[in-house]
């Protein structure tokens, strides 16, 4: 079975708790906080002020420049504040607060369930609609989708890859979306193909989701433009570079090279559904499926949630938090961010809330490196995590740069596998950020 060429680990996927739960619609919150920075790039600029009335789908914050994304009202009501509010890590950041009144939608949005397959728009017009809808990568990276689809001068896209891998343990939001929104996903895929001018697409799905593969294959039928490709269950199969290598055999070179340099454009499965809704139904990105799961969650669920809904409301809907030591993770256990503030609003990149309790909430005790080489074996980028973390502790930034630290994708395989519980990625991440800063400063001088 196809897979990526180097490294990787096999964490228990733990999807059993939530995979059987069909997508449920989360109750509308009474108040939402909408952060202006929900994507990579510049935060959006608020265009509403306190006292304004808004309807669902109305633009409330505009993209600031090219690398940014629009933000729309997820509920109807009155704007009560545009101010600093604590985010998931407790840091204050600009958010628009809306108090809900009823659920009134922008009239331009087609809320019917009818599938609209036909799309004759020009590529430019498609990208314009995606940009207007504020769509960003929904797998967690939140890269603005219109930027990804705008192929730079001199480059040519050859293949579209839809990322339905969902290699992150526990999470099932893409899985449920593929099963329940498969038709929309396939139309979205064809729209994306049209936008970047390619004639073939591959939907990559990990082997632990055979029913999703079969379902999508059934929808595609005998059409040859889209291929549903089953991939080996191995983390990080859904890493952009890993997925491209698994599907096409081509390896994206080290940064600053991009997937387009090997002719590939990758979009997440849920993103493709959002693209369908934006282009065919005029529906901006205002909600998403969020998996709430964990061994101690009473009723794990996949909830279609409006942005701005507090995470604690989702947790309460799934049976609440067990007493004692917990770790609430925005995302999955491999790459998610631990929350200190569970009042954090659900955002565009929030694919799941994973809850760890007891011993699972804590890190193991660090012991000396025994040079077992498991981190080197596990690294999907062919780096030497033991060496990089040692160099970061010594602040040997030049040496780290020479050892290709900027290629690190922060997947966490090294730290996951380390028998000595060394926080390898903490140091590697620190070193990567420092070295990237040094490189930026050097390029500015030139």
């Amino acid at each position, binding site marked *: 079975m196809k897979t990526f060429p180097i490294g990787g680990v096999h964490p228990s996927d733990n999807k059993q708790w939530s995979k059987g739960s069909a997508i449920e619609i989360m109750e509308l919150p009474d108040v939402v906080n909408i952060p202006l920075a929900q994507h990579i790039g510049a935060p959006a600029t608020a265009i509403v002020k306190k006292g304004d009335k808004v309807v669902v789908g109305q633009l409330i914050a505009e993209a600031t420049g090219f690398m940014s994304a629009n933000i729309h009202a997820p509920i109807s009501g009155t704007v009560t504040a545009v101010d600093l509010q604590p985010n998931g890590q407790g840091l204050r950041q600009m958010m628009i607060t809306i108090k809900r009144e009823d659920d009134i939608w922008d009239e331009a949005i087609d809320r019917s369930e009818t599938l609209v397959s036909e799309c004759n728009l020009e590529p430019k017009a498609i990208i314009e609609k995606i940009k207007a809808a504020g769509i960003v990568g929904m797998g967690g990276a939140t890269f603005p989708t219109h930027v990804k689809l705008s192929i730079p001068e001199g480059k040519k896209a050859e293949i579209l890859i839809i990322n339905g891998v969902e290699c992150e343990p526990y999470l099932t939001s893409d899985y449920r979306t593929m099963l329940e929104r498969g038709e929309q996903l396939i139309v979205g895929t064809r729209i994306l193909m049209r936008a970047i001018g390619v004639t073939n697409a591959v939907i990559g799905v990990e082997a632990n989701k055979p029913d999703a593969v079969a379902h999508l294959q059934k929808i595609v039928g005998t059409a040859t433009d889209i291929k549903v490709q089953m991939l080996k269950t191995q983390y990080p199969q859904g890493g952009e570079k890993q997925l491209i290598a698994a599907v096409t055999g081509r390896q994206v070179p080290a940064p600053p090279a991009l997937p387009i340099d090997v002719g590939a454009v990758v979009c997440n499965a849920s993103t493709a559904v959002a693209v369908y809704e934006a282009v065919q139904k005029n529906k901006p990105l205002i909600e998403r499926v969020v998996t709430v799961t964990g061994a101690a969650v009473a009723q794990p669920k996949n909830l279609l949630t409006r942005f701005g809904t507090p995470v604690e409301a989702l947790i309460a809907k799934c049976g609440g938090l067990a007493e004692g030591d917990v770790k609430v993770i925005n995302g999955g256990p491999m790459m998610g961010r631990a929350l200190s503030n569970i009042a954090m609003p659900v955002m565009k990149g929030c694919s799941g809330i994973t809850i760890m309790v007891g011993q699972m909430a804590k*890190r193991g005790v660090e012991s000396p490196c025994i040079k077992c*080489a498991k981190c080197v074996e596990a690294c999907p980028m*062919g780096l030497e995590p*033991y060496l990089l973390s040692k160099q970061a502790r010594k602040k040997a930034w030049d040496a780290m740069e020479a050892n290709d630290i900027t290629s690190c994708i922060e997947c*966490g395989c090294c730290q*996951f596998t380390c*028998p000595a519980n060394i926080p390898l*990625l903490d140091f590697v991440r620190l070193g990567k950020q420092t070295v990237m800063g040094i490189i930026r400063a050097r390029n500015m001088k030139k």
Partner: protein
Amino acid sequence: MANRFFVSPAPHAHSDYSTSRLMGDVVIALLPALVVSVRVFGWSVLAVTAVSIASCVLLEFLVQKYLVKGPVTVNNLSAVVTGLLLAMNLPANIPLWIVVIGAIVAIGVAKMPFGGLGKNIFNPALAARVFLLIAYPVQMTSFPTPSVEGFTDAYSGATMLGAAKGHLVDFASFDVAGMFTGAIGGSFGEVSALALLLGFAYLLMRRVITWHIPVAVLGTMAVFATIFAGIRFEDPSMHLLFPLFHLLAGGAMLGAIFMATDYVTSPMTTKGMVIYGIGIGAITMCIRLWGAYPEGMSFAILIMNSVVPLINKYVKPKRFGAVK
């Protein structure tokens, strides 16, 4: 709310690996060889093993508690592995006081002064074995003749390699089956190739080690011996028997599977592991064929141990997306 929220950067999940689990797996992998040794050489094997393990663990405990005054980490089982491997590199009838001296060299000289687990350059068990070989050559090379009944007679026989060195062996008649199952003389851990291979399979299955080092060591030895036999012997049956003899005799299996693969003293990349393994195989064969000692595995591993930092510095893994 009665919750304590834990916060840390990702990843928030961890594999089943731990230092003590990996070390425990090495101990389990050595058990078949230990059982065969007891069967072949009798209960003295257990006495040597017990004294060796107890001295290594106790010494590490004492050094950590009273000399370094740091945390005591004997429960990670690394000293147990060192003790067990040291014992398996000794003759079954060695005086127990020599075993204690071996433990002192292993833990007190080769391991702890370098900074303890993970910091030592040389394999502690091998450093101790070589020390004992030079300091107590008589006791270290008087191997009891194996007895399949479980008794050991007082006569000290030569090992297969020792005999081959003195050209006493009629190569065509040596006992391949015996070398596999353990009916040969030698340090007690090295007598049965079959038991050691069983341990190898277990280590691979549990993903404790990869195949690279053992295969590189044994493969190099086989190639080396085949070429040598091709030049040296006219009898074509020797072309197969001679390499087989070298793979089964002496510490080849024990060294390749358990000693050369010691994490701390072996390279970090698969390419490096192969280079290291080839070096060990080649040096071993040079010593066996042209050196003063009948067996060269220990020396070969120690020599290559000293090259490991250099290998780690220059042999890099293949980076993802590297331009060819």
